[in-house]
């Protein structure tokens, strides 16, 4: 190989390696799956595990939220799929919802998940056409989770026991 080719390859390697490091600093992946999934998403080759996603939806519809999240996490190990993150956020909402009070910790996890979903959705717009859901857009879920974490006068309204979970 002549010197010019070696130099050109070297420059390409350095630029690609530096870009990878910049991406890692920006994304802060926590697992190897997140690294590989993120890189495949950049190349447009990332797909969720459909079987695990179906399992997650089945658990979600049976109100088995912990099991649903485990399956959904398996379906999207790199945390790159907006729809999966939407369902994870929704599972936190449904599990944390209560007639008397809402679970702040679960709602906080839900908020983090819905923020991830919004960040991953093209243009930040995410609508899931699922007739079983009371809220089909990410904005509705986010607003509901935020409202649930706020302490307001309406929280002391005894009529709230008649409200229903969405």
């Amino acid at each position, binding site marked *: 190989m002549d010197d010019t080719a*070696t130099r050109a390859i070297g*420059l390409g*390697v*350095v630029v690609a390696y530096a870009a990878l*490091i910049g991406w*890692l600093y920006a994304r802060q*992946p*926590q697992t190897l799956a997140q690294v590989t999934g993120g890189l495949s998403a950049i190349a447009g080759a990332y797909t969720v595990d459909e079987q695990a996603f179906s399992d997650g939806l089945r658990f979600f519809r049976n109100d088995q939220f912990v099991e649903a999240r485990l399956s959904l996490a398996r379906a999207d190990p790199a945390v790159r799929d907006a729809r999966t993150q939407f369902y994870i956020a929704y599972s936190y909402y449904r599990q944390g919802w209560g007639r008397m009070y809402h679970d702040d910790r679960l709602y906080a996890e839900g908020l983090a998940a819905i923020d991830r979903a919004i960040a991953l959705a093209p243009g930040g717009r995410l609508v899931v056409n699922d007739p079983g859901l009371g809220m089909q857009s990410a904005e509705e879920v986010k607003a509901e989770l935020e409202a649930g974490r706020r302490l307001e006068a309406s929280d002391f309204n005894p009529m709230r026991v008649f409200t229903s979970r969405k």
Partner: protein
Amino acid sequence: MTVAREAIVLPSLFLTVLLLGGLRIADTTMLVPPSPYVLLIGVLLVRVVVRSGALAPGQVLAAARPTLANLNGAALIATLWLGGAQTLALLIPESGVPRLVFSVFFLVLLLSTAAASPDRERLVRSLAVTFGAAYVLKFVVLHGLSAPDASAFKRVLLELVDAATAGALIQDVPHPITAYIALLTVALYLVGVFLLPHHERRSREALPETFLRTLPPA
């Protein structure tokens, strides 16, 4: 100095230093970029490396070289700077008084090394000793002192030290593997500095006889 070493091996090695040096493994894994302060003292480190002859800038950046070769040279110098800054950031403790002391120590040390103008061999030796000492102080002494321990005596001693220093000495202790990665990072950086295209400083014996006569006796 081969072309592959200049264009591929050394920049990749310094980028690896940049990547590994930023790794902080605890409950969550974080990649910490070098702070503006260490980037500044990183410039000083590059200057010291150039002044000592450990890097001959003329061999990697020159008007006579082709554009592509100069781009490789520029990439090498940029990655040397970033790798050096990240190595310093890695060796500076994360918080409290030790962070301040180490930050000032590295600045003073680099200024004094620049003033002493050592040759390449002495610079590499000096960097190895300094970085080795800083590594031992941070990863062995400070982390050993800060590590939670099962024994009641150690816990009491730790609380006393923490109270006496107003929490300024005790550090957050990362996962033990961080120390091994740090050691590898420092070693890689030193190997990289050693492999840079360098000037050989001429020894007294190699100088012409006529010039030697003008020098004071050794």
